[in-house]
Each structure stands twice: as structure tokens, then as C-alpha cells.
């Protein structure tokens, strides 16, 4: 029987114990009777010889080894009973704790899923990310993607690593009469098996599929299977067309499968997987085209340093063999990490904020418990007098507080479970790794730990008040006047609550100010009624540059003919959307050395772009229809570039060289700066200067590549959404396979660009509001209690002639001292929090004295209001009644 069974079968065991001892005594009695004792005397004799029967039973029970548990269960029952007896107290404490732990659990489940969980592959800690590295850095840095020949050489020679290669490109997929634009990934045939991912239908690629000329096959994503085929079971063997080629489907990847940190062009990861080895395009043969992302899995027993050493050795060999492309080039490996840098600081920030709320909640409950412990002083004193050891009493107090804490924790988990999905849906721009966010055992363990820790924290407060030393005093006073140290403790609670709240309030204030400033910034474009979308141009038009250019003209003129459209243009990088094109420029015929070339954001546009975007023209002219391949190369620059490249000079007519096109180009106009990186991000961006050049002057050899990346921008006179269907129809083209995707309005993009800040503000606002509420309740509770404790003193004061306002002043003064101290401490904390926010939030502005003053005033006002109620009550005390009850 293990201890658990022994515990559960307590009654049965007690019964058996009775029987066993009775047998012993009966046996002894009958033996004595046989020897001639009268039965009565024999029985008494037997009992005397045995010694205390009850004591023996008690010792036997102890010998079972479940005494501590039985005590615990008794404490538990006692705690539950006392909670039932005071449902108001229990409810307030539980709700307070549930809010605190609920918010903390929710935030931790995000931190856990996004930051802490390992990657969803087999042996994630043996996966590496490989890059090519050059000795000399260009303006783009010194890390490169892999070339296919380098990858193939490595794959063949490496003994320490298994390599995975992937590359992606967008394309139109059509099957079953539907078409849409998706990301297609070419992957090495063993990529899925190395990652430990198996298709949920069909099979993955094999080495036999992985060469040019093999039968064209594809694995599709679970999502695409659902969208195009409605999850039909007969998917294997179905034909699909991707980017103009036919493939037969051999497998379906598991739901949510993706390559970590690589979300493709569309941001939703691979919808189509193809064998890399089937790619026959010429770039696959070139040792100077860096197109592949390479991962590796360390073979069993291999360490990272061994792998690095081998990569280095092969890198040196290839550098000697192919000096033209590989000189000074090595290969480096780093552990594969989730790509979550963008949200790491935000998540920790929010977890910190909820931790503060939780602390305030704990302090509140602690002060409630303390008040109760003091009113229970007499009860505790009696128990000590009856022989309960201090350890036993402390254990009981801690059991009670743990019951509260765990109860609050369970409610908190319920809140987190209910709130998690809605909360994630609100996360601006989608959270990376969001599929990993769940309330799993780690989260539950965390919550349990936090709850017990909290229970311990606020359980200690009453323990500190156990009247161990001054038993007799405590008994005599009925626990009413022993309040010396508890006053200090209670004031400590108020001070710390106020301090935590100041930190949260000021942080919310700082964020609010930041958001106000950001929202009032001019994005540099007129965001009203502008639609932008990426354009998938028909593969048939890409055959030669002339037909491509003609197709673009056709698309734009088709869009212009849609009623409600005022202007339409093509552009490669849209402001405030992801993606930009940074190229080097110089303004003297001989360029400065490679690594000193300045960068500019280059936009290739059609003439109507200025009109569509509403960018102000400062001087000169914008690109016009007359700027063609045969005419002089022209660029239009923005204020920032004008200032940087031609400080104090007239830029119009000046030559400028860029890494592209016909050089030199002539500056023909200056326009206003556009916040390419969004309202929040632009000020801190490394490269801000902008330059526009005509799409018509893009050299023929680049036209195809450019066309795959271009977007259309449309200014409308009506709500853009209302004419979106007509625009979709207008661009479809003669072969009907042209689509627009990633459709956004400029308004949306502008709003989204400050969405993270807005989101943070909303959350901090909620947390700060919660903190303010909790702190006010706490201040109210503590002050009511303290005032109650000194009611007889106040009664004497009133009896001696103190006025009501005098009493109120007295109480408020006391409260004011605590609040002032809390604010002073909190202000120091808030100053620190301010620094942290500056570092972590894009575009944040220091709080400044105004924010501090405003937020502190709000807090002080609510704290004093909370104190006023008990103060007023005290001033109305009838001295006779108060004194008599003492």
C-alpha cells in the first residue's frame, strides 16, 4: 500500500487499528480471568498494562507517515470553510488575483510560444543556418545567400552536416478552375525528411525526383489543399499549374508547415514545394548568383566547432579553385533561431507590465489578509496556548493563502484560455510563430508557480503578525490594540502599490504621447483614397522586354478606364509597406571606394506616380511620358537626398550616378520626402534619402525581373474598396491570368505602420487602469482598516472637542504621507521605465515633466479620493458608542 492509498483508506485503517488493539486487550483480559481475576478487575488490569490506548492509536497513525498530509487536508478544509464564511472577502481576493494571474498567464503563454519554444522540427537544437561570408564588406554587408554550385559542392563533401537548400518565388497557381498568387519554394529533395516533417498525404521528394528532366511533381501546403481542392481525398496525382508549368501533386505538407523566418513574398510561407534539382534555369549554374537559403543538420556526435572547421576548410579550397567568384569567401554556420527579434522587446515589456499589475494585486490581497489576521489575533493566540507550535500556525496561514492563490490562479487560467485567441487576433500585423502559442503544460506550470509564489508572498504578511511572543497581551486585548508593527506593514503596502501604479501610469502616458506625436506626422503622401496592390503579370508577356512594357501600359490604361479612378501608376516599392530597394549612388564621375558608397532608396515609377500619391513637387519637374530609353536618363530626388548629395546647391540639372541604368542620370526635379518606413520607423531608419527613376528607362535586361516585383497604385475619387472588383477585372488581361494581390489602401498602411505603438498603448492603458483601480481599492481598504483600529483614539479626540474637519484632515494627512512616499519611489521607477521604453519602442519620445505631472496628479487624486471615504466616516464617529465598545 503506498501512502496515497493509506491516506484514502484512512477510515478503514482506523477501524482495523481499533480491532487490533481491542483484540490485544481482550486477550490479556481473558488470560487474567483464567488466572482467577474477576472480569472487571481483569479488564482494568489489561488497560493499565497496555498504557494509553488513544495515545497508542495516535502514534500508530503517525507511523503511517501521512500525518503531514492529514494536517494539510485539515488546513485545506479549514481554509475553504473560512472562505465560505466570508464570501465577500474571498470574492474580492479571488477576483483581484484572477485578473492579475490571468493577464500574466496570457502574456507568458505568448512569451513561451514565441520566444521560448524550440523550432517545430526534429532536433531543433542541431539545426544550423549557413551563410557565405566575404572578407570585404560592401554597402550591403558581408553576408550572402548561397550560390547553387557552392551549395552542391558543400553538400557532396561535408561529413559533419546534412544540408537543406531552399529558394522561393511567387507565381500564379491554377487548378480545378481557380487561380491565385502564391509562394512556390524549391527545396532540396531531402529537406522535409531532414527536418523530420512527413507529408500528411502522399509522399515527399526522393533523390530520383531531384534532377533536371525528372517528372514535374509538387508537394502542396495543407492550406492550398483546402483552398483549391476543398481538402478532397483524391488529391494525390491531381494536376496543378504553377508559373505556367504543369505539375502533378505527390503530397500534402502538414498544417502550418513553414521554414522558420522565411515567409516568402506574401508572408504566408510555402504553398507549393518543388524539387530544387529540377530547376534548369541558368542561374543555378552560376557561382556568382546568391540565391539559396541553406540550413544544415549536424550529424550525430558532431559539434558546432567541428562543423565550422570543416566548412572553413572546404571554403578555402573552393576559394583557390574558383578565385573569380570565391576569393575571400568562406562559409559560416550559426544555430538556427526563430526569427522573432521584432517582437521580443514588446513581449518582455508587456510581461513586465502585467507582472507589476500582479504585484499590486498581491499587495492588495496581502493587506486584506493582514487585516483579517489581526482581527483573528485572539483565535490564533488561543490555538498557540492550546499547544499548536509556531510552525504549525505558519503552515496553516500559508495553506490559507495558497488556497486563495491557487484558486485565483485557476480562475486566471480560465481568463487566459478565453482571452488568448481574441487577444492574438488584435496583435498588429500578426505575431510571428503565433501557431506555437498555446496554454500548454509549461504555461500551466508557470501559472501554478507564480500563484504559489504569490500565495507565499501575501501569506507571509499575516504570519509576521502571529502573536507568538505576546500571547497573554494578545489574549487580554482581544487582538484589538496590538497594531504597532502592522501600521508600518500596512503603510508599506500602500506605498508599494502607489509606486507600482506610478510606473505603469507614467509608461502609459509616455506611450500615449508617443502615439499622439506619431499620428500627427505627415507621411509625405496623401493617404486618402489610394489603393496599392502587387501585380502578377502574365508569364506570356514576359517573353521579351517590348511585350512586357506594352503589357504594363495596357494594364495601367485599363485601370484608368475604370469609373472612379483618377490616376494609376506602377511602382516597385510602396511606402510604408514591407520591402525597399537600397542602391548606391555617387555624384562625381569617379565613384568613391565600394564600402564608402552612400545608399538611397530607389523607386522605379511611371509618370502618374506623383499624382497618385499626392507627393508635393518642390522644384523642377517629375518624370514624364517623354522620358524613354532613347532620351536622356533622368531622376527625381527628395528633399533629404537634395540636402545630402547637393548641400547648398541647386540640384536641378546635376548629374548623379546610380548602380543601375544609363549613367549618369540628370536630376530634373525635387519632391517632398515620403516616410517609406512608416510613421514610426522613418526617423530612425539608416537610409532615408529617396530617388525616383522612370520605369521606362529600366534597361531591357532588367525589365523582366522588375516586372515580377512591381505594384500598381491607384487614386480613386470614390471609396477604393467599392471599385476593387472592377479593377481586378480590368487587369485580368487577354489571357485572363493576371491578378492583383496584397491589396491595401494607403490609409491602412499608414495606420498599420504605427499599429505596434497603438497596441502597446492600449495594453499599457488597460494595465495602468487596472493598476489604478486596484491601488485605489487597496488604499481605501487599508485606510478604512487603519482608521477603524484607532477609532477609540479618534473618539477621544472628538470628545475633547476636535472638529469633524480636523479628524478628516488628520486621516488625509496620514494617507497623504504614504501616497507621497509611494509617488517619490514610483517616480524613480518610472524614470527608469521611461528609459527602457525609449530603447524598445520605435519613435518613442521621452515622457517629460508634463507627462509625469499629469499621470501623478491622476494617481494622487484617486488615492486621496479613496482615503476621503474612510476619513469622513471617522469624522462622524459617536465618541460614546466607540469608547463603550472598547
Amino acid at each position, binding site marked *: 500500500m503506498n501512502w496515497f492509498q493509506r491516506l484514502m483508506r484512512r477510515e478503514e485503517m482506523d477501524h482495523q487499528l481499533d*480491532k487490533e*488493539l481491542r483484540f490485544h486487550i481482550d486477550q490479556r483480559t481473558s488470560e487474567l480471568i483464567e488466572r482467577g481475576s474477576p472480569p472487571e478487575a481483569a479488564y482494568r488490569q489489561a488497560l493499565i498494562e*497496555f*498504557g494509553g*490506548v488513544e495515545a497508542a492509536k495516535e*502514534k*500508530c497513525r503517525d*507511523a503511517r*507517515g501521512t500525518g503531514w498530509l492529514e494536517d494539510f487536508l485539515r488546513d485545506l478544509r479549514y481554509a475553504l470553510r473560512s472562505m465560505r464564511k466570508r464570501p465577500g472577502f474571498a470574492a474580492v481576493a479571488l477576483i483581484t488575483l484572477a485578473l492579475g494571474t490571468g493577464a500574466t498567464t496570457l502574456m507568458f503563454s505568448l512569451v513561451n510560444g514565441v520566444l521560448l519554444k524550440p523550432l517545430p522540427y526534429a532536433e531543433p537544437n542541431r539545426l544550423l543556418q549557413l551563410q557565405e561570408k566575404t572578407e570585404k564588406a560592401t554597402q550591403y554587408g558581408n553576408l550572402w545567400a548561397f550560390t547553387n554550385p557552392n551549395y552542391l559542392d558543400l553538400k557532396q563533401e561535408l561529413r559533419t552536416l546534412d544540408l537543406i537548400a531552399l529558394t522561393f518565388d511567387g507565381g500564379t497557381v491554377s487548378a480545378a478552375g481557380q487561380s491565385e498568387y502564391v509562394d512556390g519554394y524549391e527545396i532540396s529533395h531531402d529537406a522535409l525528411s531532414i527536418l523530420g516533417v512527413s507529408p500528411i498525404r502522399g509522399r515527399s521528394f526522393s533523390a530520383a525526383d531531384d534532377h533536371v528532366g525528372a517528372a514535374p511533381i509538387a508537394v502542396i501546403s495543407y492550406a492550398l489543399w483546402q483552398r483549391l481542392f476543398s481538402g478532397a481525398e483524391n488529391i494525390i496525382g491531381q494536376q496543378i499549374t504553377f508559373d505556367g508549368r504543369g505539375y502533378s501533386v505527390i503530397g500534402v505538407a502538414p498544417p502550418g508547415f513553414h521554414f522558420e523566418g522565411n515567409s516568402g513574398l506574401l508572408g504566408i510561407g510555402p504553398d507549393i514545394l518543388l524539387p530544387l534539382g529540377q530547376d534548369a534555369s541558368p542561374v543555378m549554374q552560376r557561382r556568382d548568383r546568391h540565391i539559396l537559403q541553406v540550413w544544415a543538420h549536424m550529424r550525430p556526435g558532431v559539434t558546432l566547432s567541428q562543423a565550422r572547421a570543416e566548412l572553413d576548410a572546404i571554403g578555402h579550397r573552393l576559394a583557390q579553385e574558383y578565385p573569380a567568384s570565391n576569393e575571400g569567401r568562406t562559409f559560416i554556420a550559426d544555430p538556427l533561431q526563430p526569427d522573432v527579434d521584432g517582437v521580443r522587446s514588446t513581449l518582455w515589456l508587456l510581461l513586465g507590465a502585467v507582472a507589476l499589475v500582479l504585484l499590486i494585486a498581491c499587495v492588495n490581497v496581502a493587506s486584506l489578509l493582514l487585516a483579517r489576521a489581526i482581527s483573528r489575533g485572539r483565535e490564533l493566540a488561543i490555538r498557540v496556548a492550546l499547544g499548536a507550535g509556531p510552525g504549525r500556525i505558519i503552515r496553516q496561514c500559508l495553506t490559507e493563502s495558497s488556497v486563495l492563490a491557487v484558486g485565483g490562479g485557476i480562475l486566471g487560467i480560465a481568463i487566459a484560455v478565453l482571452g488568448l485567441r481574441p487577444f492574438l487576433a488584435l496583435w498588429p500585423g500578426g505575431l510571428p510563430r503565433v501557431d506555437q502559442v498555446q496554454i500548454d503544460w509549461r504555461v500551466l506550470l508557470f501559472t501554478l508557480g507564480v500563484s504559489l509564489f504569490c500565495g507565499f508572498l501575501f501569506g507571509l504578511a499575516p504570519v509576521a503578525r502571529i502573536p507568538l511572543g505576546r500571547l497573554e497581551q494578545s489574549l487580554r486585548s482581544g487582538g484589538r490594540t496590538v497594531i504597532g508593527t502592522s501600521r508600518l506593514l500596512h503603510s508599506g503596502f500602500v506605498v508599494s502599490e502607489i509606486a507600482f501604479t506610478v510606473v505603469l501610469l507614467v509608461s502609459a502616458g509616455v506611450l500615449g504621447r508617443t502615439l499622439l506625436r506619431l499620428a500627427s506626422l505627415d507621411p509625405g503622401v496623401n493617404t486618402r483614397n489610394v489603393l496599392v496592390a502587387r501585380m502578377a503579370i502574365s508569364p506570356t508577356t514576359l517573353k521579351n522586354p517590348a511585350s512586357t512594357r506594352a503589357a504594363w501600359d495596357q494594364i495601367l490604361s485599363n485601370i484608368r478606364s475604370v469609373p472612379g479612378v483618377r490616376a494609376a501608376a506602377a511602382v516597385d516599392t510602396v511606402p510604408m509597406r514591407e520591402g525597399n530597394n537600397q542602391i548606391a549612388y555617387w555624384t562625381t564621375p569617379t565613384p568613391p571606394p565600394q564600402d564608402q558608397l552612400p545608399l538611397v532608396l530607389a523607386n522605379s515609377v511611371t509618370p502618374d506616380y506623383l499624382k497618385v500619391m499626392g507627393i508635393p513637387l518642390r522644384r523642377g519637374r517629375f518624370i514624364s511620358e517623354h522620358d524613354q530609353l532613347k532620351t536622356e536618363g533622368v531622376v527625381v530626388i527628395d528633399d533629404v537626398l537634395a540636402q545630402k548629395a547637393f548641400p547648398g546647391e541647386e540640384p536641378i540639372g546635376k548629374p548623379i550616378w546610380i548602380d543601375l541604368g544609363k549613367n549618369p542620370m540628370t536630376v530634373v526635379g525635387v519632391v517632398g520626402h515620403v516616410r517609406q518606413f512608416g510613421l514610426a520607423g522613418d526617423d530612425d531608419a539608416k537610409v532615408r534619402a529617396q530617388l525616383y527613376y522612370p520605369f521606362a528607362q529600366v534597361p531591357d535586361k532588367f525589365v523582366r525581373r522588375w516586372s515580377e516585383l512591381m505594384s500598381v497604385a491607384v487614386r480613386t475619387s470614390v471609396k477604393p474598396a467599392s471599385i476593387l472588383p472592377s479593377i481586378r477585372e480590368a487587369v485580368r488581361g487577354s489571357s485572363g491570368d493576371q491578378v492583383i494581390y496584397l491589396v491595401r489602401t494607403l490609409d491602412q498602411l499608414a495606420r498599420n505602420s504605427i499599429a505596434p505603438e497603438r497596441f502597446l498603448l492600449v495594453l499599457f492603458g488597460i494595465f495602468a487602469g487596472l493598476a489604478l483601480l486596484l491601488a485605489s481599492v487597496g488604499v481605501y481598504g487599508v485606510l478604512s482598516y487603519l482608521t477603524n483600529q484607532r477609532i477609540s483614539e479618534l473618539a477621544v479626540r472628538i470628545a475633547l472637542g476636535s472638529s469633524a474637519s480636523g479628524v478628516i484632515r488628520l486621516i488625509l494627512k496620514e494617507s497623504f504621507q504614504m501616497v507621497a512616499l509611494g509617488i517619490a519611489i514610483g517616480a524613480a521607477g518610472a524614470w527608469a521605465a521611461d528609459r527602457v521604453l525609449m530603447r524598445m519602442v520605435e519613435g518613442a519620445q521621452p515622457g517629460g515633466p508634463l507627462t509625469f505631472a499629469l499621470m501623478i496628479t491622476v494617481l494622487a487624486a484617486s488615492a486621496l479620493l479613496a482615503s476621503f471615504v474612510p476619513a469622513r466616516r471617522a469624522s462622524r464617529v459617536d465618541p460614546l458608542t466607540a469608547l463603550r465598545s472598547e
Partner: protein
Amino acid sequence: MPTNPKSDLPQGTLDLLILKVVALRPLHGYAITQRLQQVSRDVVQVQQGSLYPALHRLENRGLLTAEWRDTETGREAKFYRLTRKGRAQLQSETASWERLTEAVTLVLKLREEGAK
């Protein structure tokens, strides 16, 4: 003269004695007290009430196992029996007890010699 010059049992000795008594055959609590007194010629006088906590402790530690059986008089009693683990424990404890008493005897003798 008091009939029983009771000797106080050193710590842990009661356990050893119980194991030894039960090793011969299964016994109930009352019989164990009887046997203890008989074989020790009434020198070891165990307070009857303290026998049972010891029995339960040994049962808990898995050195004894118990079952309810009828006695000769037809009443149900709880009989204790030595487990394999209990037997091993008995052996090792006996050995260490013997070493201890031997050593103590030696020391006592030494003192006598020294006094000479």
C-alpha cells in the same frame, strides 16, 4: 524486591527484537509481547502500547507484512510476518548489533585491565 528489574531498551532495539521474534513464524501483536517477555526471561519489559506503533512503522517500511487470520480461539487477529526485505534487515542489524556489543564488551574489559 521488584520482580522485574526493567532495563531500558536502547534506541532501535525494539525493532530488532520484533523482527527476530516474528522471523520464526507469523504472530499477532499480543503474542509478540508474550514471546518477548518469555524469551528475555522478563528482562525486556515492553510497554504494550508502544509495541503497536513500532509494528505499524515496520509494516510501513515494508519489513513486515500483515494479514487478518483466525486464532485457535476462533477470533480474527492481525498476524505479522517477516518480508524478504525484513529478513535482510534482520541479518544486517543482527550483525551490526553483535559488532557493537562485542566492541562495548571489549571497551568495558579494557577499563578493568587499566584499573589493575
